[in-house]
C-alpha cells in the first residue's frame, strides 16, 4: 500500500492496489462529490452573507476532530495492509492477527466519526434546520449525509475483511480484497479532506 512496503522502488506497478473495479467506483465518486463541491461554492457566490451566517451554526471543533479521526483511521488501514505484505510470507497467522487489530482500531475510529456526526445532525435538527431551510444547509446536509453513508459502507466492508482475517484468510499472494477495502476508505478520507475546509472553515 504505502511506498515503504513496495519491494522494488524503481519499478512502477501496472495496476493500482486492489480490485480494478473499486477504482472505477473511486473515479465516479470523485466526479460526483466534485460536482457537489462546485454546486456548493458557486451557490455561495450568489449569497455570501447567508452562507457565512449559516456556517456559524456548525461546530468547527467536531469537524476538526472528525478530520483527525479519519486521517488516523486511514493510517491504521495502511498499517494493516503493510502487516500482510511484510509478514504474511513468513507468518501468515501472526500477520492476519496483527492486521485484524489495525482494522478493528480503524473501525472503532470510524464508529466514533459516525457518533460525532449523529450528534452534529441532532443538534442541527433540534434547531429546526432542514434541507429546505436555505441553500447552505441543503448543501451541508446533502454533502455530509452522503459522506456519512460512505463511512457506513466502509465499516461494513471492514467488518467483512475482519471476519476473513480471523480465519487467517489473507496472504502475501492473496490480499487484493484488503487493498480494495483500503482504497475505498482512503477515498472516504480524501473526500472529507476537501469537505472539511470547504464547508466548515472557508468564509
Amino acid at each position, binding site marked *: *500500500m*504505502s*511506498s*515503504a512496503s*513496495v519491494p522494488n*522502488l524503481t519499478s*512502477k*506497478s*501496472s*495496476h*493500482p*492496489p486492489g480490485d480494478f473495479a473499486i*477504482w472505477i467506483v*473511486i*473515479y465516479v465518486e*470523485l*466526479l460526483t462529490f*466534485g460536482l457537489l*463541491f*462546485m454546486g456548493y*461554492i*458557486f451557490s*455561495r*457566490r*450568489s*449569497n*455570501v*452573507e*447567508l452562507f457565512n451566517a449559516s456556517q456559524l451554526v456548525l461546530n*468547527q*471543533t467536531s*469537524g*476538526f476532530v472528525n*478530520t*483527525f479521526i479519519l*486521517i*488516523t483511521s*486511514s*493510517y491504521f*488501514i*495502511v*498499517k494493516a495492509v*503493510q502487516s500482510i505484505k511484510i509478514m504474511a510470507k513468513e507468518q501468515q497467522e501472526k500477520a492476519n492477527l496483527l492486521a485484524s487489530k489495525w482494522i478493528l482500531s480503524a473501525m472503532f475510529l470510524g464508529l466514533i466519526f459516525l457518533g460525532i456526526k449523529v450528534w452534529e445532525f441532532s443538534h442541527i435538527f433540534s434547531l429546526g434546520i432542514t434541507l429546505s431551510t436555505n441553500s447552505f444547509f441543503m448543501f451541508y446536509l446533502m454533502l455530509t449525509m452522503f459522506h456519512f453513508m460512505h463511512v457506513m459502507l466502509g465499516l461494513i466492508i471492514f467488518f467483512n475483511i475482519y471476519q476473513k482475517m480471523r480465519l487467517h484468510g489473507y496472504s502475501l499472494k492473496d490480499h487484493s480484497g484488503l487493498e480494495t477495502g483500503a*482504497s475505498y476508505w*482512503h*477515498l472516504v*478520507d*480524501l473526500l472529507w*479532506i*476537501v469537505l*472539511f*475546509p*470547504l464547508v*466548515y*472553515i*472557508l*468564509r
Partner: protein
Amino acid sequence: MKYKLEFIWLSLVTLSLFAYIMGQVEYFPKLFSILLLLGTLVKGQLITDYFMGLKSVRLKYRLIPTLWLGIVISLIAVAYYLPYEASY
C-alpha cells in the same frame, strides 16, 4: 525513511490543525483562504500518493485523482475570488 508513514500522518494532522486554527480566527483574511486551499491540495496529494499508494503505480492512475484535486481546488479558488454582486 523508516518512519515515512508516521511523518505523512503527522503532516496531515498538522495541516488540518492549521486549517482549524485559521477557522477559529474571527477575521478571515484572503491570505488564509489561499493557505487553506494550498494546505488542502497538499493533504489530498499526500493521501493519494502514500495512503492510496498511487505514487508507486503508473502515472495514468495517479494522474486522475491529482487532476481532480487540482481542478476542484482551482475552481473553489475561482468561485471564491471572482468578484460577486452582493444580494439584498
